[in-house]
């Protein structure tokens, strides 16, 4: 793992808020030259710490009024190939994230839908019919906050 200093931490925090800032603008803010800032960003990317960019969209404004988290248990462990399940579930457009977890469930899915009726359609036609899908628990998202995490200070 590469060693990071306070300036790297501030750089990561700043880019996590707004990744459209130029190296020049970031550098002025951090008291670095444009090339020095650019080198630091490259280094963080090469270390895999900055793993690309994500467009943040307002789901509600785009007509996706419902987000549901599903805990999915596989019905017949050992008989179903995890790869088959993962490939099939990842191909569903309404499924935004797929996490393999250990505990009460095998997979955790984040699903968006226009409304509850639309969600029911996705659940019945797409999710319940997945190879190996067993018990499913649904929790409807009410609020969500993302925090800056332990990157200091």
């Amino acid at each position, binding site marked *: *793992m590469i060693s*990071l200093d306070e300036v790297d931490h501030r750089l*990561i925090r700043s*880019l*996590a*808020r*707004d*990744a*459209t800032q130029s190296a020049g603008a970031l550098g002025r803010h951090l008291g670095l030259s444009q090339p020095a800032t650019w080198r630091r960003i490259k280094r963080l990317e090469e*270390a*895999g*710490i*900055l*793993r*690309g*960019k*994500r*467009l*943040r*969209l*307002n*789901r509600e*404004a*785009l007509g996706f009024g419902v987000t549901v*988290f599903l*805990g999915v248990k596989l019905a017949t462990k050992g008989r179903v190939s995890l790869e088959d399940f*993962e490939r099939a*579930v*990842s191909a569903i*457009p*309404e*499924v*935004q*994230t*797929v*996490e*393999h*977890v*250990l*505990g*009460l*469930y095998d*997979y*955790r899915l984040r699903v*968006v839908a226009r409304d509850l009726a639309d969600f029911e359609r996705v659940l019945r036609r797409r999710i319940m019919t997945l190879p190996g899908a067993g018990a499913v*628990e*649904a*929790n*409807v*998202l*009410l*609020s*969500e*906050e*993302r*925090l800056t*995490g*332990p*990157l*200091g200070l």
Partner: protein
Amino acid sequence: MLDDMDRRILRHWQADAGLTPAELADLTGLTAGKVSRRIVRMQEAGVVQGVAAVVDWAALGYTVEVSLRITLDKTQGNAFDRFLDEARKLPEVIEIQTFLGRVDVRLSVIARDMAHYQQIYRAGILTLPHIADIEALMHVARIKSDEALPL
């Protein structure tokens, strides 16, 4: 409201958030100026909220990620607010979600290793107010994480 061209721009931009207006113009057949004007309009309408860098916590040495599903003691009037206020103060909590369902709140907690997690769990999580029950899901792998909307 958005038209089909706006949605086309968003589909391409969502697939690669690093694209510039000029690159989006090439992909959609518009001029860069027209793409920029549409983007500004979608930002002003609150549809586009911004572009964020994705931080990989594992690459920063936080190799353990646990999803804590928490049921609160709702007989206490302000259980939600008091719990959330305290949970926000724990630096290793990177995500807080509230739900309608069997679970009230979910916290994403990251730690350097299991010993560190144990310490956060005992000294931080278990001291949060109004917890009735906790279930933990240990994160193994991220299969899909783009969070794209089916536009």
